């Protein structure tokens, strides 16, 4: 009888520990990390450059020590204010690494910025595979992730100067973290 009890307990404990062994998933956390880069353009030539680093943002620094991998997902543009309201032109965004290497150079033609003021939907930049690969290759270093972003309005075809434009570029990253 003692032997039966001992064998039963051992078998049951083994099955229990087998089912309990899959707890690695509890220690990983895929994260969406959104950051917002605000800008303001005015004057005859509409262009603004902002330097920023991911560790300027709490949504990144809260998990920075646990991030194993981070990649770029999406980039959108929103307008806050624009003058004159009928301003129209080509919106260009250029993002470079800290050393000036171009990661993204995108232009969307014939944009009326007033169309992207809330509650209207934002304008999305569709990045090429090469741009995504270059961006993610830079992100893979996981340290000193600093960028320079230039947004400009070119080939203005409507509206009279002086021009004024304020808005934001929102960038969405996805990070794999482990604890």
């Amino acid at each position, binding site marked *: *009888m003692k032997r039966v009890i001992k064998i039963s307990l051992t078998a049951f404990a083994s099955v*229990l520990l087998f089912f*309990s062994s*899959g707890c690695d998933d509890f*220690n990983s956390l895929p994260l969406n990390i959104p950051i917002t880069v605000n800008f303001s353009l005015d004057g005859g030539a509409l262009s603004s450059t902002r330097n920023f680093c991911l560790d300027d943002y709490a949504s990144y620094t809260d998990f920075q020590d646990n991030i194993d991998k981070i990649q770029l997902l999406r980039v959108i543009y*929103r307008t806050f204010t624009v003058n004159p309201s009928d301003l129209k032109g080509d919106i260009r965004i250029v993002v470079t690494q800290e050393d000036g290497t171009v990661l993204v150079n995108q232009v969307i033609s014939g944009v009326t910025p007033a169309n992207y003021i809330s509650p*209207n*939907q*934002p304008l999305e930049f569709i990045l090429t595979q090469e741009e995504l690969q270059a961006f993610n290759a830079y992100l893979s270093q996981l340290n000193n992730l600093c960028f320079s972003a230039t947004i400009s309005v070119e080939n203005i075809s409507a509206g009279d100067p002086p021009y004024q434009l304020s808005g934001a570029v929102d960038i969405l990253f996805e990070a794999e973290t482990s604890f």
Partner: protein
Amino acid sequence: MKKSFFSLIIALFLFVSSYAQVEDRFGYLDDTQISDYVKPLVTTLGTAFNSASYHSASIPKLWGFGISFNAMLILVPDDQLTYTPKLPENYIESGETATIWGDKGGAFAGPDGFVVFPAGINKSSIPIGYPQISFSTMGTELLVRYLPKIDLGETDIGFWGLGISHSINQYIPLVPVDFAVQILYNSFSMKDLVDASNIAFNVHASKSFGLFTGYAGLQYESSSMDLSYTYTDPNGTNPDQDFTVSIDGDNSFRFTLGGTLKLAVVGLNIDYSLGSQSVVTGGLSFEF
């Protein structure tokens, strides 16, 4: 005996110790959004604690005592791994995001930038285990489950449950099967975080064929949880807020089918329950 009891404590603890990572996920959702994300967890706790309450409908008339160790694997269906989130006004992108048991959280673009939702734990089968003892006399069985408070540092956990079963076939001579009715109540808590309660009513029947007993039951059950957590705006716009919300699980009816192999005082049972979340339950019991 000590080793197996400790193994069961580990199993429950492993589930609970994941709560630190679970709470990170809660913090992204305010009180209008948390229910859809957490509901499958409430259902899982209800499924777990409303299980393993019987493996035979034969209840001793004179005297009986039993101690059992139960382990279960809860199976979360695909439709409980994601949900459609409530988005702010004027956000027209649509899609699903993970529940607590799902995988990746969703991200939706709109007039005020990106709205992001937390990921899940990416598990569709969850193991839980716990011990219980039973006392029976006059065709009535009292089931007791209890774990002493376990200190986890920032919180402590407590678990207890009570069940009463009563034999019905003792009143009906010549009935070819044993059958009984049961009521069950369980409570699980993590101090200052979670207070979960579960209740069940069932009728179950069994028939023995030598060493083997087949059993089946139909059960109505419910589960609910009070959850306290701190919300942190993922965009950093609003200050942290403390919320306490009450969430009901999707538990309602389940059908159970199983069998017990008994050799002298040792019984090994396994059963499958079909419900909102199905569960495979195994038990090792010593009955005197």
